[in-house]
């Protein structure tokens, strides 16, 4: 690891992507992720990379599709309404099995909502998001350091499984400044020459086709079967989560991700000082979801409390994972209003 640099989350993830070998970035401005676009505009020309401000989110994601089809590390970023526009392209990228990284620094919604850090795109992120039968791996950081670490990880997962990978951070992480260390090594690029398009001049015997149209139902069925075999591999290898204070055998376990989890940790520390033991399970990959880890955390608990910066989205995955082993309660805040540690400590005491 190198020296610690004080950076905004939006800048840190941009720098981390460049250090991870990303040289093609296409995006359209939207708050609260503009620092990411602007950082790329400044840095990409210095590393002989491509920064291009697209005419729309639709164009940006399709530029990513084009670059990814050529086998280079390509990325785009946006915030909630912009990610909705990108979903068409993400569906095609998933269907064509192209590696790409998409960062969503979420804001309040639905509609234009606001620019506060609401985490209300959980359903969209974890259920494919666009049309069709597919998923995208989703990484959900809770610190600026983790946001930065997720950039190389996202490219690794994208290239290993040939899939778009989403980093889902909220506006708070995008805007907040924290010290960040960047890893020295970049992920080794995978050789994509067996499928990608681009000048081949004698290096292969035939042309390559990248396509998501399969008119014959049995052909599309077969393509989908292969896609879901890949998803099984991703579930086997890429589930990530963190537990906190679970060694205290707490009777109440909180499940929270991203910023909500971070605030919960502070609350857990406060309660510990008062002699109250509370555990936390924090999904880092929202898809694939750490269902087993959640079930394990629930098995010794009297109650599970799900805390989200929305009106209750992840709670559905928690209930599926817990599967009735203990009661699951929910507490959420909408509109981009964020819980304080004191709010959460009080909530926990009330629920115990």
């Amino acid at each position: 690891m190198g020296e610690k640099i004080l950076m905004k989350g939006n800048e840190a993830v941009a720098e981390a992507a460049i250090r991870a070998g990303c040289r093609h970035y296409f995006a359209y401005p939207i708050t609260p992720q503009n620092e990411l676009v602007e950082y790329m505009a400044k840095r990409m020309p210095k590393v002989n990379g491509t920064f291009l401000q697209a005419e729309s989110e639709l164009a940006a994601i399709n530029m990513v599709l084009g670059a990814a089809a050529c086998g280079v590390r390509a990325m785009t970023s946006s915030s909630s309404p912009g990610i909705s526009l990108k979903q068409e392209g993400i569906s095609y990228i998933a269907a064509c099995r192209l590696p790409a990284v998409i960062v969503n620094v979420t804001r309040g919604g639905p509609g234009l909502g606001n620019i506060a850090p609401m985490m209300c795109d959980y359903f969209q992120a974890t259920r494919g998001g666009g049309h069709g039968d597919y998923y995208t791996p989703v990484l959900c950081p809770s610190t600026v350091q983790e946001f930065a670490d997720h950039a190389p990880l996202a490219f690794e997962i994208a290239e290993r499984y040939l899939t778009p990978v989403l980093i889902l951070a909220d506006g708070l992480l995008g805007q907040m400044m924290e010290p960040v260390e960047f890893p020295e090594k970049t992920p080794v690029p995978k050789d994509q020459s067996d499928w990608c398009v681009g000048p081949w001049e004698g290096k292969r015997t035939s042309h390559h086709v990248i396509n998501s149209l399969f008119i014959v139902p049995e052909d599309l069925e077969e393509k989908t079967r292969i896609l879901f075999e890949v998803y099984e591999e991703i579930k086997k290898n890429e589930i990530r989560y963190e537990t906190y204070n679970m060694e205290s055998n707490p009777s109440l376990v909180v499940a929270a991700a991203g910023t909500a989890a971070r605030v919960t940790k502070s609350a857990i520390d406060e309660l510990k000082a008062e002699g109250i033991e509370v555990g936390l399970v924090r999904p880092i990959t929202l898809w694939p979801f750490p269902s087993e880890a959640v079930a394990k955390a629930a098995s010794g608990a009297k109650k599970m409390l799900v805390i989200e910066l929305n009106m209750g989205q992840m709670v559905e995955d928690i209930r599926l994972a817990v599967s009735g082993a203990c009661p699951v309660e929910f507490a959420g805040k909408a509109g981009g209003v964020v819980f304080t540690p004191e709010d959460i400590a009080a909530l926990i005491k009330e629920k115990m």
Partner: protein
Amino acid sequence: MKVVAKRPEALTDVRLTYCPGCLHGVAHRIIAESVDELGIKERTIGIAPVGCAVFAYRFFACDMVQVPHGRAPAVATGMRRARPGAIVFTYQGDGDLAAIGTAETVHSANRNENISVFFINNAVYGMTGGQMAPTTLPGMRATTSPYGRDVSDTGFPMRVCEMLATLEMPNYIERVSLLSPKEIVKAKKAVKKALKYTMEGRGFSFVEMISTCPTNWGLDPVSSREWARENMLPVFPPGLFKDRSAGAKPGAEKE
């Protein structure tokens, strides 16, 4: 035995699935012949649209990518930024290029992206069954303009070459037609010139080809060409609109 005619190397041996009398096959052939003559098959990436030509990915023997409706110029932008040595062309119909993909068309032209855009204009949505296109003629019947296109309600047909020619940056814009052997020869010259400009890195090349749709127009192949000559060419006059590499000034220049 001497070979006097053969399938271009840049086409696969897959049988074309276009309707009888459709001119997509002609457009495919002149692009493929040009690719062969320029010796760029192994450097070329073609982009298939959504529409009748969606199956172009099966017909061309260069690298092919099939992309979302209207987004071909954005995909091409990503490709040519990732692989500056690639010759990237898009192949798009009127609905794809001039309705859902208008923004991508205009902005890629404005950036003077080093790509060739081949635009097949037959005044109708073919694949979906003959709906009104942005280029449907005034009074022309389509399944979604069953009483004829009423320009007071749905606007006048869009002249894309003329629109793009108002932009400062695009390198080459020409409209040709595919209605007779003589016109096809001329169209091929334009196609080849576009690809050559892309090879030379001169920027955005745009060739509109006036075509037909016998199936959705309800005409036989011969009369559909006559109909296009009488009705389409006056609204979409062939001509060179821009050729910055050759020093031509903006604005339609009738020959």
